[in-house]
């Protein structure tokens, strides 16, 4: 069974899977805040990213936002269909709207991210 999601302050979520890989996406709050999404540049497969490094971009009608790697690791794969159906990010951000799979350099790094309670508190603060 996959572990619970963890979150970065920059609103990416990450979930450690049973096989030691991790799935990454952006939170429902972030998708809603960006409003109408029009384009997405997926991370580059095979690239090694450092925690906090931009590894993808998403454009809404008004803004381009970077997608940051929540932890360091190698990008194993991306959701190739996602740019063609960006509505998945809003409709199902934690399953069909996944963005990338990585192999974390150190899975223990996920423990340093926000758990659901802490993330809920963050977005509650940012919503006011």
């Amino acid at each position: 069974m996959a572990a619970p999601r963890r979150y970065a302050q920059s609103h990416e979520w990450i979930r450690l899977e049973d096989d030691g890989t991790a799935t990454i996406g952006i939170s429902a709050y972030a998708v809603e805040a960006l409003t109408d999404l029009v384009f997405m540049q997926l991370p580059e497969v095979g690239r090694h990213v450092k925690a906090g490094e931009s590894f993808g971009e998403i454009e809404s009608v008004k803004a381009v936002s970077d997608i940051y790697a929540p932890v360091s690791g190698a990008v194993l794969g991306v959701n190739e269909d996602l740019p063609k159906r960006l509505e998945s990010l809003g409709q199902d951000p934690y399953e069909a709207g996944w963005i990338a799979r990585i192999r974390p350099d150190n899975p223990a790094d996920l423990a340093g991210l926000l758990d659901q309670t802490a993330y809920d508190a963050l977005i509650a603060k940012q919503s006011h």
Partner: protein
Amino acid sequence: MNGIAVWRDGAADGPTNMAADECLAAEAARRGGMVVRLYRWEGTTVSLGAFQSIATARECDAIAGVPLVRRPSGGGAIVHGSDFTYAVAIPKRHAWGAKPQSLYDAVHGAMIESLRSCGVETRLADPDPAAEGAFFCFDRRAGGDLTADHPSATAAARSVKLMGSAQRRLADAVLQHGSLLLESNLDVGPAARHLALADLTGAVGQRPDGWPAWVDEWLERVAASLGQQIEEQPVSFLGTAPLGLAVGRERFAASRWTNRR
């Protein structure tokens, strides 16, 4: 931080202006508050949105031969040179930093009030999905764009877009830059020209230093809505030689960036 630092820059080329705007975002994060840069362009320049097609730009005869620069922000292409261009940056944790629309509406809303005091009535536009994919920014209508009634009663009901802005949302800061059309730009073909403030009012109302007459009021209104004061800086932003400017300029000038899509 109590004041909003405002720098007024002279004319620079596209890569320098884009690099300076990115440096401005870093400055906002460093200072922990809003910062503003007003600037001009060295000749007519077209800025493309971060993901616009370079092929479409190259195929547009109306802007043939005009220098191109790709912005870090989204949105459509803008013909600069006869416009008022600004950049505002705030830390991500700023009251207007959580959602794109907050900063957009605040900056544009202040402009509505400033233009009204000069006798120009404008309003925030409703989004028009049908125009979403238009190549030029001023042919698009995003929610919060600044529009005015078309000056001709016989024209289609469509309004005139006078001001549009776009953002780059970074890890610790939000950069928003935008353009208000002062006059139609005659350096480009008719397909790239758009009705401008002067077409509605007969004059732009420039001060002796070249900035529009309503700029100070606009800045004051933005500051007042935050309970802050404007702090005009004694030198230009480029004159401060911001860290990262040279590297950024090189990146924005590179064909790898311009032709990225």
